[in-house]
């Protein structure tokens, strides 16, 4: 009996330790975002409730925030819409025609998802300048399609595969057109899949910095790329307070939707393969 309780004690100590290791840094970021510059230099863990950092981020003073927040929101929302518009029909085709769910198509989509951004920045910079969408929101949304469309297609297909084909056949024999069938029957059935896909597309787009820092400049910099510029110089003169406020902002979507998405995280990170 004693042995068991010691074991349980160690177990809980370990788990609580893990929770602290993950919770404390997040608390510290929030604390720094609420501290004035001299206070940050002292390294105190208790913030002095200096709210100017947050005002600066919201108004875009000092180059972080302001339009960056709007840009990030527009880019992420548009990416979700575009990925769903392209992804839902394609995923339907894959889940209904077995010959399409083959490894060649999957491999091709997978390689696009896995392409290192470092290999894409040079072609995108050249191409986007050539067709005049460099430093526009369109350009960013289009560039992110290379990651978002493969994710949305395969994630949605894995959800759609669990909806029986007999439903399609019954609806078509009842005289439903493809469009009406989608609207009335199919989309309501794969709503959870659409939700999870939107979540992951949003998170990936919202988090991306590398490509954005190359193909945007003045008019379309998202929050992450602004953060990068303001912190690019190692050493003096970094406004940690404002940067931390922006950092907290970038973390909000992931944390806010975490509870809702928690059951689907393994699926989302593995393109629906697990």
């Amino acid at each position, binding site marked *: 009996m004693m042995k068991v309780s010691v074991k349980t004690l160690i177990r809980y100590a370990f788990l609580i330790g893990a929770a602290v290791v*993950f919770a404390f840094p997040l608390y510290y970021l929030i604390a720094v975002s609420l501290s004035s510059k001299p206070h940050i230099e002292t390294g105190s863990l208790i913030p002095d409730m200096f709210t100017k950092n947050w005002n600066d981020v919201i108004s875009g003073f000092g180059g972080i925030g302001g339009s960056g927040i709007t840009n990030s929101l527009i880019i992420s929302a548009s990416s979700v819409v575009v990925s769903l518009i392209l992804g839902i029909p394609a995923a339907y085709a894959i889940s209904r025609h077995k010959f399409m769910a083959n490894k060649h198509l999957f491999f091709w989509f997978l390689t696009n998802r*896995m392409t290192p951004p470092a290999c894409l920045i040079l072609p995108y910079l050249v191409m986007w300048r050539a067709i005049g969408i460099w430093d526009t929101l369109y350009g960013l949304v289009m560039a992110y399609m290379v990651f978002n469309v493969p994710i949305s297609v395969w994630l949605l297909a894995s959800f759609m595969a669990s909806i029986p084909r007999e439903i399609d056949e019954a609806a078509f024999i009842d005289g439903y057109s493809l469009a009406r069938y989608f609207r009335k029957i199919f989309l309501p059935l794969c709503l959870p899949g659409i939700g999870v896909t939107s979540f992951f597309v949003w998170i990936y787009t919202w*988090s991306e910095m590398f490509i954005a820092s190359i193909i945007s400049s003045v008019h379309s910099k998202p929050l992450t790329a602004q953060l990068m510029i303001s912190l690019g110089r190692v050493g003096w003169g970094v406004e940690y307070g404002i940067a931390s406020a922006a950092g907290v902002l970038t973390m909000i979507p992931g944390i806010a939707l975490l509870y809702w998405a928690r059951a689907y995280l393994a699926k989302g*990170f593995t393109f629906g393969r697990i």
Partner: protein
Amino acid sequence: MTMLTTGYNLNLWIRFISENSLKLMAARRSAVSKYLILPAVVAVLVVGLVPFLVLINYSVQTPYAEQNVFVAFNNFRKIVSEPRFIDALRRNIIFSATVLSIEIPLGLLLAFLLYEKSKVNAVISTFIIIPALVPPISIGLLWRLLIRTAGPLGQLAALMNLGYDPFKIPSHAYWTIVLMDMWHWTSLITIVTSAGLAGMDRTPVLSARTEGATRWQIFRHVELPAISFPLVFVSLIRLIDSLKIYDEVIILTGGGPGLTNEYISQYLKTIAIDQWIIGIGAAGSLIYNFIVLMLCYLLLIVMTRGRGLI
């Protein structure tokens, strides 16, 4: 024809024809639906394939006297004899090996510790995944705040007299990046293997326990084979992602001190964008992408072994 004149048979014919035409229409509808894949394919061709044609085009040219001349594989020869490229590549591979060999056992351990269904476990497993869902650049910022001299970890190291200075000592910077990556991604291994464990049949474990197997034997011979697919899968994803590390490092130390922590993405960005040596940059990008492509192929083999894709 005489048969048709009777009312009964006419009804039969009408029913036959209408039913078949409905079935035909239904069949046509499901046949048409296979073309629904086209928009996505076209989109990925434009944003995924065309860039590679551009890269290939640049990789075989070099500017000479205000003109681009064809130099065949010269750029590739130059990039593989460039010490900075080879160093960055080697360093990145060592880094990936380090983080994977730490994160896989640790992630598995956490998955087993969190296996039992309870409220505490649910809260903790939700909490540890947060870093994987926030921008890597914010993780970099967070860790830079933690390790600077006035930050909590910096102060702690000073208190323990470790002589810790990641901005001057390369190995300190390296291990800080490893620690940061562990903090960032260990939970991914945990959640994916947890999903595998949750879907696993417990009967063999119970019977092994009755037979008197030790905890390690149960893990090694019963549980590990059952979760090998998710484990290998997520490890390969982590391997590919760790080869792409950029955001966190650039914020933490800027690849420094000096060039001692410059990873492959950062080097390629420097040469292709900052220095605008596009021929060599494109050649390096193609080599880098080829390595990732091979790993993707390995992932595909793992994934399709003994199971369908959908």
